[in-house]
């Protein structure tokens, strides 16, 4: 009896931790793409919602009948290395054009619950034409249609629109393609996560295209002025505490490494306090992470790689293997090297791994390989690149956890 009860408690904990990491990895889990994960989240809905609300103040919305769960991730500082990606084998990141079309389509799709690709494209043409700040959309051009289809396919992936008949990709070949869509308006609205409406931010500025301060989009009233640096005096003790906990855990749960050097005074104080330490540990443990706490900062280890868009080290891409080898080179030379010096190293790597030929052997291949490899290191919080081919690359402390085994001293 007690064994059974123990087993159940254990299973429950495992389910919870798995569901938390799944949601961190994919903030929108749909029944139509991941039936099992969705089912798991549906079962543990309440506990999950409490967990996310307590530790990081993120809302979790589960719609059992509509078939999706959405973790509304709010981040003050978004990482540019995690863009929207095309739903194609290249997984290339979206460009400005695709982002723009995605937003235009979303705005136009709100109008009618059922539509076709032709009507949608027509409406986007009109919407783009009506706005002097948006370049016109011309469905006659093949590259424009491809961008349009990419944006639409991402919306399909999120379940905001569903192709009832026909396939979106046929539009790439011909503007005459017939595809029928059903629009899920609510889900479309839920794609937006910023707590402040973008239109409100846009209206408060004189210039409609002035680049917004992204922090304006993420102001949350419940923290009062605690979140604004320098204005913390106006916030209550509770608000300050809440903000310190939420902001710290948001970063820790989302980013590969959180360095003390990048933390604010309030966050450092919280992480150093007895309660703060306990909460960090408990959050990591309940979510199935291992917390690595070092003098320079914190990182979470997800052994199953559920809550991660990529792995490092990994054999999955040549750039990743090169990144590991360059990391060794950097570690051996006291952590900093000029970018150009690394290009030479990459050249040697290309000689060692003739299999990488196809992607990198052509002109400037070593340069491109170095670019990609350094980007991998930067994306995982292991290095900093001062920019450009003339700049230098500096290893960050956490990189040392991947160096070649040192002799035990």
């Amino acid at each position, binding site marked *: 009896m007690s064994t059974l009860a123990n087993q159940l408690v254990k299973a429950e904990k495992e389910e919870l931790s798995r569901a938390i990491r799944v949601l961190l*990895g994919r*903030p929108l889990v749909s029944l139509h793409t991941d039936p099992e994960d969705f089912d798991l989240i549906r079962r543990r809905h309440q506990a999950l919602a409490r967990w996310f609300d307590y530790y990081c103040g993120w809302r979790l919305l589960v719609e059992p009948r509509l078939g999706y769960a959405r973790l509304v*991730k*709010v*981040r003050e500082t*978004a*990482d*540019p*290395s*995690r*863009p*929207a990606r095309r739903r194609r084998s290249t997984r290339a990141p979206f*460009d*400005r*054009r695709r*982002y*723009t*079309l995605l*937003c*235009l389509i979303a*705005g136009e799709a709100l109008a009618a*619950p059922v539509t076709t690709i032709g009507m949608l494209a027509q409406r986007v043409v009109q919407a783009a034409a009506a*706005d002097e700040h*948006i370049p016109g959309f011309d469905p006659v051009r093949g590259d424009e249609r491809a961008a349009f289809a990419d944006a639409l396919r991402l919306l399909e992936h*999120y379940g905001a629109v569903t192709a009832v008949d026909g396939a979106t990709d046929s539009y790439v070949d011909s503007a005459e393609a017939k595809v029928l869509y059903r629009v899920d308006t*609510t889900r479309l*609205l839920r*794609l*937006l*996560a*910023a707590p402040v409406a*973008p239109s409100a*931010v*846009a209206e408060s500025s004189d210039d*409609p*295209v002035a680049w*917004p301060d*992204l922090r304006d989009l*993420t102001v949350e009233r419940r923290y009062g002025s605690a979140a604004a640096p320098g204005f913390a005096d106006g916030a209550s003790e509770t608000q300050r505490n809440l903000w310190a906990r939420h902001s710290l855990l948001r970063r820790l*749960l*989302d980013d*590969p490494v959180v360095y003390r050097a990048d933390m604010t005074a309030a966050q450092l104080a919280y992480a150093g306090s007895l309660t703060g330490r306990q909460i960090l540990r408990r959050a990591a443990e309940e979510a199935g992470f291992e917390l690595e706490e*070092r*003098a320079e900062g914190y990182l979470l*280890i*997800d*052994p199953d790689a559920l*809550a991660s*868009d990529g792995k*490092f*080290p990994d*054999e999955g891409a040549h750039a990743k293997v090169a990144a590991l080898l360059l990391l060794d080179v950097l570690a051996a030379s006291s952590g900093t090297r000029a970018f150009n010096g690394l290009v030479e190293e990459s050249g040697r790597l290309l000689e060692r791994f003739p*299999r990488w030929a196809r992607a990198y052997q052509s002109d400037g291949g070593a340069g491109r390989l170095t670019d990609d490899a350094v980007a991998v290191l930067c994306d*995982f919080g292991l290095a900093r690149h001062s920019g450009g081919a003339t700049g230098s690359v500096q290893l960050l*402390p956490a*990189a*040392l*956890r*991947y*160096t070649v085994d040192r002799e035990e001293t």
Partner: protein
Amino acid sequence: MAPPRIPAEMFQFTTTERSDLHTAVMYAFGDANERLETFLTFDQVRERLRAIGWYAPLDDAGLNRTLGQLVQWKLLDVVQNHAGAYATAEEYERKNLQYSLTRRGEAAFAGVQHALTVLESSGALQTAVLDAIADRLGELDTLLGTADAAMNRRIFTTLQELEGHLDALRNNTKQFNGELQRLMRAEGADLATFHEVKSATIVYLQEFVINLDSRAEAVRAVLAQVELRGVSVLHQRALIGAELPPSPGADPAVPWLTARRAKWDGLRLWFLPEGDGVPRVRQLHDVARRAIVSLLQVLDRITESRRRSSSAAADFRALARWFANAPSEQDAHRLWGTAFGLAPARHAHLAHEDAELIPTGAPWAEAAPVHVSAHLRTSGRTEHIGRTAKVRDVAAVRAARRERARRERAELETAWRRLSTGGRVKLSAFGTLEHDTFRRLLDLLGRALAARPDASGLRRAVTTDGRIEVMLWPAPDGPGVELHTVRGRFTTPDYPVEIRFVGGGPAAAREASRA
């Protein structure tokens, strides 16, 4: 059975460009018909048109054309009246023509009116209809009880009323359902209206559900009674009462009886189905209940989308503008991450075999690195048999832990041995200490200071394993003392202190632990 054919041009007056005028004229005739005026002259038509609210200018030629058109469609008949008294030729021309609705015209008018009624009516689930059905059935029961042939007519009319009510019940339910579906699809319905309709509907549905069961039961009981008296008897007597007009050819009684039987079957289906079937009246419950639930859901959805959708389109447009004018692709990605929050997390996936071996707070440079497949470095690939490596080698981990514990223990013993005072000494006697030994000393002093002093001010404490006892006497007044280690100085009052092993020296303890 072939679908019925509608005579050509019957409803054409509703579809042409001038359908407004045509319909108005038809209404004028319909209106006259109700007042039992069988025909209208040209002037009368004009008068009626004004009476039913047609004020648009209309010249004589236009009206003439319209009337002519309707005649051509065989909706109106025109006759010349030579009997009238006419004073002038003009009067004769205007008044000698008399128009009246043809049979087809009457039908077309009725059809249009019916269509409009259906369009305007909203369905309803009516308890009154259920009551009426029960009443009529009761009446039939009483009527069948008497053999009086004079009652046959009453039986006929009552049966017709009963069938009428059944039709109403069926239509209303159907319409109500349709209405509900339309209500839920309504995209443009404004919230206030919807709220009103919704609350009214829910109150209505609740009232309906409350007494549905008892009413249905009443109908069932009386229906069973009538059946006991014989349905065929009922129909026969009703047939006599109906006094069907004779018609050439087939006997009209046969189709008439078939129709009655079909209706009766329908009645049974609603209230008293054969076998295990569920009476359809029971489904009304479900309909009502479902309606309440769906209405509430729709309301939720509308409220939600109302809250944001007006601004949502604007939000998406603002974002589109920003994206189109982003200073760099990097900024666009950042905006994507902030506005949509759909970006995945990113984490390390390689862990230490035994993280407990590394003290928290040590710099990364001092902590041992995690194990990265050596194969990955040499060949660019991880060993694929490595999948099983996920199960940690517990034996190795244990051995490592044991070794570490042993080492720590040895260090501790050494430190304690150095600290063992062999009697009461002053702290100043320690002089210079190794850092590790000093940490142990601090630990022991801390324990002693945490203990409550006895009457003489002596504090006593033992380590958790009970091996070392430390005694601390109050410090005499005077200047403190400095203890030196390689890493710094420690200033403290010069406490007299005794540190000793309990129950023998370290050698004895080693033997004890071995035993």
